[in-house]
C-alpha cells in the first residue's frame, strides 16, 4: 500500500474517485481550480473534470450555499467549499435554515445530498477571523452530519461516505493536518488504500488504550492528546485516547465504556469552551457513567476569547500538549502514581 501525507490528499482522492463514477457530483467554491480550495481538498480535480464540473464561484458564500441547496433538490450532489470555516457567517442562513432543514420541513420530499468541505483551526498566526474551528455551531443545528477527520485514512473514507450519503455532511479538515508544504504538519504519513472505501459515521476510534484516564478529542487535538499521553506514560500514568471522528452522529457508547473503565475523563477541544463539544460530551458521559466517575469530568478548550494574533497570545489559548499534560496530571494526581510505584 502507498502512503499519503495528510487529510487533504485523502479528501481530494475520494472526490476524484467518486466523481469518476457519479456524474451528479459537481464541485463549487472559491478558488477550487488552480488552488484546490486553498487547503488542497479539491486539488487536481479541474484538470480531470474541467471547469464545468469544478466551478470557481464569485466570492458569494450565501449564494453558492443556496445554489447547492437548489442543485441538490434538483438531483445533483454538490461538493461545496467553504474556504475557511470562519467565513460561515457570509453563507450561514442558506446552510442552517435551508440545507439543514429542507428534508425535514418538506416531510421528507427533498433529499439534501450536499458535502461541504471546510478548513479549520489555528496555530500558525492567522488571528481571529481565520483560526476558528466552529464545528460546535454546526453540530448544534439539527440536520448536519459533522465529520472531523484526524487521519488521511479517515479523511478519505468519510469523504467517500459523504458523497454516497443523501444528507448534508460537513467535513472539517484541520489546516495543520492537511500535509501541505506551506503549513506545519502535526499528523503522520500513513498507509491509505488506493481503492475507494466508505467509513461508517458514528464510530469513535480508540487511538490508544489505557486504564487511568480517558482523553477524548477530535481533529488536531487527537494528535496533541496522543503526545501528552506518551509523556504521561513516562510518569507512570496510563491514558486511553479516543478520537470521536464524527460529532453527529456521536458514538456515546465508546465514550461511556471508556469512562466506566478509567473513571476519569478529560475532554480536549479546539473550539470555544462554553456551550460546545466539551459540555455535550460531558453531559452524555455523566448521564450513563456517573457512578463510575472518580471525579468531575475535566476539559481543556479555547477559553472564551477570540484567537489572538501574536504568537505568545495564540499559544495561550489554543490547547497545547503541555496544557493537556498538566490537566491530565491534575486529574490523576499524585496518589495514583505513588500507589503504582509502591
Amino acid at each position, binding site marked *: 500500500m502507498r502512503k499519503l501525507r495528510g487529510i487533504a490528499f485523502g479528501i481530494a482522492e475520494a472526490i476524484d474517485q467518486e466523481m469518476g463514477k457519479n456524474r451528479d457530483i459537481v464541485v463549487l467554491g*472559491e*478558488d477550487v*481550480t*488552480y*488552488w484546490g480550495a*486553498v487547503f488542497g481538498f479539491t486539488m487536481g480535480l479541474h484538470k480531470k473534470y474541467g*471547469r464545468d464540473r469544478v466551478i*470557481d*464561484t*464569485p*466570492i*458569494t458564500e*450565501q*449564494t453558492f450555499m443556496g445554489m447547492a441547496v437548489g442543485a441538490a433538490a434538483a438531483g445533483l450532489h454538490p461538493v461545496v467549499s467553504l474556504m475557511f470555516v*470562519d*467565513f460561515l*457567517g*457570509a453563507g450561514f442562513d442558506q446552510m442552517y435554515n435551508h440545507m439543514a432543514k429542507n428534508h425535514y420541513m418538506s416531510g421528507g420530499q427533498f433529499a439534501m445530498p450536499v458535502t461541504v468541505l471546510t478548513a479549520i483551526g489555528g*496555530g*500558525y*498566526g*492567522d*488571528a*481571529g*477571523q*481565520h483560526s476558528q474551528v466552529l464545528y460546535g455551531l454546526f453540530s448544534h443545528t439539527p440536520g448536519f452530519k459533522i465529520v472531523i477527520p484526524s487521519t488521511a485514512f479517515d479523511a478519505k473514507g468519510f469523504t467517500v461516505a459523504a458523497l454516497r450519503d443523501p444528507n448534508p455532511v460537513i467535513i472539517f479538515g484541520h489546516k495543520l493536518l492537511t500535509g501541505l*508544504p*506551506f*503549513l*506545519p504538519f502535526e499528523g503522520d504519513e500513513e498507509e491509505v488504500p488506493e481503492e475507494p472505501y466508505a467509513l461508517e459515521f458514528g464510530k469513535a476510534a480508540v487511538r490508544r488504550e489505557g486504564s487511568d484516564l480517558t482523553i477524548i478529542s477530535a481533529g488536531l487535538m487527537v494528535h496533541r492528546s496522543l503526545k501528552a499521553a506518551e509523556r504521561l506514560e513516562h510518569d507512570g500514568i496510563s491514558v486511553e485516547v479516543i478520537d470521536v471522528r464524527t460529532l453527529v452522529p456521536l458514538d456515546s457508547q465508546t465514550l461511556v465504556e471508556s469512562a466506566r473503565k478509567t473513571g476519569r475523563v478529560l475532554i480536549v477541544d479546539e473550539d470555544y469552551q462554553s456551550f460546545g463539544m466539551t459540555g455535550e460530551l460531558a453531559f452524555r458521559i455523566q448521564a450513563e457513567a456517573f457512578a463510575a466517575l472518580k471525579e468531575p469530568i475535566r476539559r481543556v478548550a479555547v*477559553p*472564551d*476569547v*477570540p484567537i*489572538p*494574533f*501574536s*504568537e*505568545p*497570545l*495564540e*499559544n*495561550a*489559548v489554543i490547547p497545547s500538549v503541555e496544557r493537556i499534560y498538566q490537566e491530565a496530571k491534575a486529574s490523576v494526581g499524585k496518589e495514583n502514581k505513588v500507589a503504582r510505584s509502591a
Partner: protein
Amino acid sequence: MWRAEPNVEDLRYLATKAGLTADLCLTAYRQMSLIRFFEEAIAEKYYVGKQPDFNLAAGPIRGEMHLAVGQEATAVGVCLLLSDEDVVVSTHRPHHHAIAKGVDLNQLAAEIFGKVDGLCRGKGGHMHLFDKANNFSCSGIVGASYPQAAGAALAFKVSSKQLVAVAFSGEGAANHGTFGETLNAAALWQLPLIIVVEDNLYADSTPKWAAVGTSQQYQRALSYAVNALLVDGMDFIDVYRAAKAAVDRARHGYGPSLIEAVCYRYRGHFEGDLGEYRTQEELELWRRRDPITLLGERLKKLGWADEAALERARNEAKAEVEQAIAFAESSSLPDPNEAFAGVFR
C-alpha cells in the same frame, strides 16, 4: 494604457482644475514611496525563517500576508482628501490604506510583528488593524467593509457632521451580497459614502472573467442610482480627480459615489502565491505603468519637481520605514495573560 494620455498642457489643466499643486503632488509622491518601501520591507522580514521551506507559521511575522505593491495610487489618491475624522474601512489588504490615512508607521509595523506596541497590542495582526485616532479599521472577511463604512456615513448624516466614510474593497468583494445591499442603502438614504473598488483583475487565483458577469463593477452602482466613476488606478492624478469630485459631493450632502480604479498587484495575492493563474508578460506590462514612476515623470514634465526633490522624498520615506521596522523589531511580545483580557469593556 487604456486611457488617453494627456499632453503636458492638458495634464497641467486637469491637475490644477482638480486642486492639485506641486506641493500636494510631491506629498503624494512621498506617501506612495512610503507605502512601497514599507510593503517591500515587510516582505523582506516576512521571508525570514520561511526560506528555503515556506511555512506560514515560521519567522518573526506569522500567518498570511497580503501586500499592495502596485496599488499605491488608489490609496493615496483618495486618502489625501480625507481628514482624521473621516472614516476609512479597509480589507485583508490594508497597509496602503492605513498608511495613506495617516496611521502611525511604528505602531502599524509593530502590530504586523505581533508586538505589544502595535496598534492593537498584538491581538489583531496584519488583517485586523484598528486605529481609533485616525478612524481606520479593516477586516479579513471579504465584503465586510461596505456596510461598516455605510454605518459610519449614516452616523455622520444623523449627527449632521460634514464628514465622509470610505469603504475600500477589491473587485472580487464587489460580487458579494453586501455590495449591492450597501449601494441600495447608500442611494436610498443619500449617505456620505464613497466606495472605492480596487480592480486588480484577480480575487485570489480567480480572474475577473471567471467571476464577474459585467465587464466592470461600476456599472452596477449606476443601476442603484449611485454616482459612479471608472478611473486608471495606476494614475494618481486620475484617481485624485475622481475622488475629489466624490468627496466634495458626499461632504456637501449630495450622496454616495463609487470609484472603480483599475490597477494591478505586482506581488502574489498573498506571499507564497505561485501565480500559476497569470502570465509573466501581463505582470511586465503593468509594471511599465508603475504608479510611482508615472507620477514622478509627470512632476518633472510639469516642472513641479526635479529629480533631486523626488530623490529626497524617496530617501525620507525609506528612512521612515527603516525606523518603523527597527521600532517593531525592538518592541516586546505581549504577556500571554493579555490573551484572556478584553472580550468585554
